C-alpha cells in the first residue's frame, strides 16, 4: 500500500501566496473509507505543530470521517469542500496532534 503524499511547501516557493495552502498533500482519490482517514492520520504524525495537510478524496463518506478525525485528534479543520464528487479537506496540526 503506497501512499501518495507530496510535500508542497518547497514546491510552492515563488508561487502566489494563496496557493501555498498546505505543507503536505495526500491524494486519496479512488480510495474507500476509512482508508483516507487512516492515511491522513499517518501523514499528520509526520507533520510538525502548525503545519497543515491537504487531502483530496472521492468517497463521500469522508465528509463525515474528517470532522470526526479532527475532533478526536484535536486538529483544526481549516476547510472542507465538495465539488463535482471531489472532497477537499485542510487540517492543521496545532498541539501534539
Amino acid at each position, binding site marked *: *500500500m503506497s501512499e501518495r503524499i507530496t510535500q508542497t511547501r518547497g514546491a510552492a516557493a515563488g508561487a502566489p501566496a494563496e496557493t501555498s495552502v498546505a505543507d503536505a498533500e495526500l491524494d486519496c482519490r479512488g480510495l*474507500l*473509507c*476509512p482508508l483516507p482517514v*487512516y492515511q491522513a492520520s499517518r501523514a499528520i504524525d509526520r507533520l510538525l505543530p502548525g503545519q497543515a495537510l491537504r487531502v483530496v478524496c472521492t468517497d463521500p463518506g469522508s465528509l463525515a*470521517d474528517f470532522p470526526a*478525525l479532527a475532533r478526536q485528534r484535536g486538529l483544526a479543520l481549516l476547510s472542507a469542500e465538495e465539488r463535482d464528487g471531489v472532497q477537499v479537506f485542510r487540517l492543521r496540526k496545532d498541539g501534539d496532534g
Partner: protein
Amino acid sequence: MYITNSAAGQPPAQTEPQQDRTAAERRARQERLRPDASRRRYGSVRDLIASPQNPTPLVRLSRVLPSGAEAHLKLEWFNPFGSIKDRTALYLLEGMRRRGELGGRELVEATSGNTGIALAALAALEGKKLTVTIPSGAPQEKLTLLRMLGAEVMATPDDLCPVDNPSDGAIALARAVAESPAHRGRYAMPNQYANPDNVRAHYETTGPEIWEQTEGRVRTFVAGFGTCGTITGVGRFLKERDPSIRVVAVEPQRGHHLPGLKNLQEAKAPAILDRSVLDDVVRVDDGPAYAMARRLFREEALIVGPSTGAIVEAIARLEPAESGLVVGISPDGGHKYASFYAERLDAEEVAR
C-alpha cells in the same frame, strides 16, 4: 499413524523433475529421502497443519478445576504456525484458489494476529504478498512475527473514525483496501469473518478430531467468540453427532484485552456465527482470564495465551455433574504474549 493432510485439499507436494542428465544424478534423486508422515518426515511445513490424520493433542487438566470435573484442552499451538488459525488460513486459501480468486493478486485480511501469521506463512511459501490490518493493542510480538514473515502491517488506530470499535475498524480498513477503485482489483480478501471456509475448516478437522479423540464421549464443548469459525464449525459437527452435546461460547468484557476474542455487544457479530448451535454464553472478564492463564502456567505447566485463560475460567464455572466430559480449545500458546504478561506481573508487583 501420521498422514499428510492432503484431505484438506492442498495440491500434492511438488514432484521432482524426472529428466536426469547423468546416472549419478538419477542415483542421487532415488536416494533422496521422501516425505513419510509415519516417520513424521514432511516435504513442507504446511503438511504439519492439523487434520483428523494428524490431530493436535488433547491434554487433561488436573489441578485448576474443582474436584470431580473432567476437562481436556485441545492444544492448538501444536499447529506449525502456532495457533488454531493455521487450519482456517489453509482452508481460506484453498477455497480462494478453487474459486479462481487468487491468480496474481495480493492478499489483504483483518486479523488480531494469528490468522495473519498463518496466512503470511502460507503466502510466503507461495511468494505471495500479504497486507494485514490489525486492531490497535495487539501485542508487539505478533506485529514483529508478521513483519518477519514479510507481511505489510497496517495497525488500525483507535481514532480511526467513524467506526468506534478497533477490531471492526480493522475489518472496515481491510475491505477498503480490497475494494478501493484506485487499487483496480489488486487485492483479494479471504474475509475470515464471513467466509464459510472458516467454518468448514473446523467442521472437517477440529470437530472430527475431538469426536475421535474422546471416543465419542465429549458432553460439553467450550470455545471463544472470535471469528466464530471454531464455535460454529465444531458445534455444528458435534450437534450432528449428538444433539445433546452442550456447546458453550466464551465472551470477553467490553474493551477487553484478550486478543482473538470478541465481545459481540461492542463488535459486530460475524456473519458466519450460527447461534443455533449455542447452548450457553459465559462472560469472562480480563482479570479472571489472566489469573487463570497464570494458574495454567504455574499449576498445569501449560504455556497458553490469554484467551485460553478465559476459556478455562469458563470451564471452571460449569457444574461438573451437568457438564460431563468437557473439551475446551486452547487457541494458541503464551510466547507471543510475553509483553502482555510482563505488564501484568509488573503491575502486581507494584501493587504488592
